[in-house]
């Protein structure tokens, strides 16, 4: 599974990063040049209408990656608009952000709001 993600990630990231606009208010936006060196452990997989892991703990400045494995589009939207939302992610598309200020950030899929997740950012 890990190998699969790594293989896919490089190809997908390059195409998707061009399409998606990440401009974060409190959080740093991503850069294509550093995308492929993203931390493997900070990948959130979207499968069967669930974010996995549901809670992810990262350090400030870490890159966080969501990848959609479903045949259904999903989004990543911050509760309270604390970071920039993703566009609709189609199958195999990726959304990447860089964690900003320490704190707990709830997010959900605005298409299927039953899907929720949490990012905990530590110093």
């Amino acid at each position, binding site marked *: 599974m890990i190998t699969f993600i790594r293989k896919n990630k490089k190809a997908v990231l390059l195409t998707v990063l061009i399409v998606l606009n990440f401009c974060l208010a409190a959080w740093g936006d991503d850069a294509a040049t550093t995308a492929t060196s993203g931390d493997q452990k900070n990948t959130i997989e979207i499968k*069967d*209408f*669930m974010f996995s892991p549901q809670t992810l703990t990262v350090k400030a400045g870490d890159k966080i990656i969501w990848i959609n494995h*479903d*045949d*259904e*589009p999903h*989004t990543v*939207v911050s*509760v309270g608009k604390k970071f920039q939302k993703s*566009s*609709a992610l*189609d*199958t195999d598309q990726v959304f990447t952000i860089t964690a900003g200020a320490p704190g707990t950030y*709830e*997010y*959900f899929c*605005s*298409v*299927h*709001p*039953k899907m*929720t997740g949490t990012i905990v950012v530590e110093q």
Partner: protein
Amino acid sequence: MKDHNHILHNVDSDGIDRRGFLKCMAWAGTGVLWTVSGGVLISKTLAEIAKAGASLPAASDLSFLQISDSHIGFNKEANKDVAETLKIALDRINAMPVQPSFLIHTGDITQLSKPEEFDTFDEVLKSCRTKDVFYVPGEHDVLNDGGKLYRERYLKSVNAKGSGWYSFNKNGVHFIGLVNVLELQAGGLGQLGDEQLEWLEADVKGLGADTPMVVFAHIPLWTVYPQWGWGTSDSERALQFLKRFGSVTVLNGHIHQVLQKVDGNVTFHTAMSTAFPQPAPGTAPSPGPMKVPAEKLRSMLGLTSVQYKQGNSALAVVDSNLS
């Protein structure tokens, strides 16, 4: 029509007994005709109609078609050519001896709200002989712009308010198109919102209780399966405004399968998709597109015909698949 298809015990005076209701539920998905004749609810499958050589209800005052969940742009295993299956559905409408007065599309026109997907839908729709279409948006139609593009394209012929809700009258029937796919809250279901509910209350206020009502929206206005988000959090408030009416028909999409529920004078009905089926509630890990053998696909796609005859208390709702 055999006797066992007639109402035997109508304890609620709602024209439906438990046995009759269960029979209708069992037929849902294979095509079922509901009609009211002399106050007795009769139902029969389309197959039975075909066998008996009978036709669909004769002259009615109003007939319209519901199509739903076209998902133009979807190209995965479950159905790689959703434009083609939409076209087949439209061909079925074109083949009807009497064209319906209009179509209702209950949302998810597109898969990803892309302009080119809306373009393809509009192009395919040109082949339909029935030209008037009334829309409500699905969540797939409002993905990135809050529904701006959808509203620009599909609300030209109606007097839409707020994020796109409206009502109109046809042949004495009052139609209400509602929007329940916008500004959804984390962890929640579909949502109408205060502004739309206030509008609805005012919209129906002056209408007589004998006015037949048809309410259509994308996500079911009854709680089908909350674990999958198949419901609308504030639909009960909407139904409060409607419960004084003698006949309310609620038409929804979103769940890509036929389900019906009767609650007092309100009949809830969900339509098949023209694109791909979804699993029955709770029968799969997620509500994602259901992959079925190619030869089975069209039997799980379809459209819904609704007929209204003045003086009858209920509308006849008929589902037919594309096989």
